[in-house]
């Protein structure tokens, strides 16, 4: 290959909307693995990608981060200018025009809410400011009356989506969207999808525990270890990912302790208090948003009801550790390589 040919290919790849794949035909180059990480969505997002040449792969990874940052900007409830914040500010007032991605995500969220009998609910955020996790202030318990009042504002059925008009509306004042239980899974998959659309076949995108895989890692599939929620320095087991996503909800990273009792950040939308049935749930699903939202919803439901929800779904695999420390598997459970329970 002459340098001239290589340069031309690079130029084409940089300019065309859907460029030739990294590792494009005709220009053999030796494959590299790049791993890059950025702070995003209050956590660390990591992209691992295989391909060549390295400079082009680096550029593609930058583009994937830019796309994920764009989506995080739309979906953040903390940034006052985001589409989601706009919907929140207009709760009970009027429908708000939102980008297609926001509608898509809210529609997916509603499906998971229906499936989990409201155990996953994006309107949980009406309760959010009552509970302070990971903040700097002293931990406190919210007044029970206030929890009761806010709980009445948690109602996914009162999220009104109008796809033809491209609007979203929260029917009652005081309602609030919080996409923390679904956005990271959605965004990790979007990052992976963007890379594939630009010719990078082998990709793993991890937004902390929400991971989306495409292609393979060389001569084997991508392999993900599942942290043991009972002993987080150890693994519960491993699983191979084939063009799909995996997410975990656990109660051991964000919590506070009052009078010896631990209050963690995954609230049961129906009670307004931290869910108590599980300590950790991992879900594999074809779509990142589904994996993320189901992990939250099944965590709240607990082992028995979770098993019922995914019983006949060949596309979803679940590992759930109950409050008693017992490990349960459900759905296409044969896929997990679990270690013997200690």
């Amino acid at each position, binding site marked *: 290959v002459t340098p001239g040919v290589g340069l031309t290919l690079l130029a084409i790849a940089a300019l065309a909307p859907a460029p030739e794949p990294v590792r494009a035909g005709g220009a053999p180059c030796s494959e590299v693995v790049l*791993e*890059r*990480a*950025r*702070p995003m969505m*209050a*956590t*660390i997002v*990591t992209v*691992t990608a295989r391909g060549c040449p390295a*400079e082009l792969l*680096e*550029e593609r990874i*930058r583009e994937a981060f830019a796309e994920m940052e764009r989506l995080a900007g739309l979906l953040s409830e903390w940034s006052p200018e985001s589409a989601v914040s706009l919907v929140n500010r207009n709760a009970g007032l009027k429908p708000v025009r939102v980008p297609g991605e926001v509608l898509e995500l809210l529609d997916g969220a509603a499906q998971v809410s229906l499936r989990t009998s409201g155990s996953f609910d994006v309107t949980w955020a009406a309760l959010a400011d009552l509970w302070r996790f*990971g903040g700097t202030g002293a931990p406190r318990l919210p007044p029970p009356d206030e929890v009761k009042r806010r709980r009445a504002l948690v109602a996914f059925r009162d999220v009104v989506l109008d796809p033809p008009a491209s609007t979203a509306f929260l029917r009652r004042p005081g309602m609030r969207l919080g996409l923390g239980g679904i956005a*990271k899974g959605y965004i990790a998959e979007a990052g992976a999808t963007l890379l594939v659309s630009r010719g990078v076949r082998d990709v*793993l995108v*991890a937004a*902390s*525990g*929400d*991971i989306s895989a495409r292609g393979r*890692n060389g001569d*084997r599939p*991508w*392999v*993900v*270890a*599942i*942290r043991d*929620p009972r002993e*987080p*320095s*150890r*693994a519960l087991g*491993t699983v191979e990912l084939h063009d799909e996503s*995996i*997410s*975990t*909800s*656990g*109660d*051991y*990273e*964000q919590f506070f302790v009052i009078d010896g009792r631990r209050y963690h950040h995954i609230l049961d939308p129906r009670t307004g208090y931290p869910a108590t049935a599980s300590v*950790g749930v*991992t879900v594999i699903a074809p779509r990142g948003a589904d994996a993320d939202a189901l992990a939250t919803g099944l965590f709240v439901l607990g082992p028995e009801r979770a098993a019922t929800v995914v019983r006949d779904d060949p596309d979803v695999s679940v590992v759930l550790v109950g409050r008693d420390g017992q490990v349960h598997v459900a759905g296409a459970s044969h896929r997990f*390589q679990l*270690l*013997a329970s200690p």
Partner: protein
Amino acid sequence: VKLAAALLAATLPAAAARADQVFLREPDAPRALFGDGVRFERSTLELSAAELDDLSRRVGRKVEVRQVPFLAVSSGSGELLGWVFVLDVVGQSLPITFAVGVKVDGRVQDVQVMVYREPHGSEIRERRFRAQFAGKNGDQPLVVGKDIDAITGATISSHSAAYAVRKGLALAEILRRRVDRKSP
């Protein structure tokens, strides 16, 4: 130059005790943050007592280290584009090393993670960790000896990035003031 390099080596976090996850090495940071084709020079910013006070006030934490290594990044033609600061920030758990890129106009160019330290012990990526599988599932060659590409677990919250950005911006401001003072 040697002195600057030595200072840098001394100030940088003991990068990569073996199990740390290293995403970006210092020589690759300018390109990763500012794009291909850039050049860079290592240098050290010596803060005066007044500048140290100013910095502490701006970032909201007492800063005591007076010597700050940085990389001055320029285009292929030699025009100064901005600076990269390598900052080790202690958050709720273990320190994370960030590369904060600031443009000459004082705005953030980009932030990336250089070294991430697993809060639960890095054994999850280690041979020792994999031995768990060998010991208990010796009859399942599918798992034994395989590498692990990622770990899924409860979301780890990192608010230290905001601090890294604040500090990077404040340091760039000090550099910008010095440049202003030098120009006619």
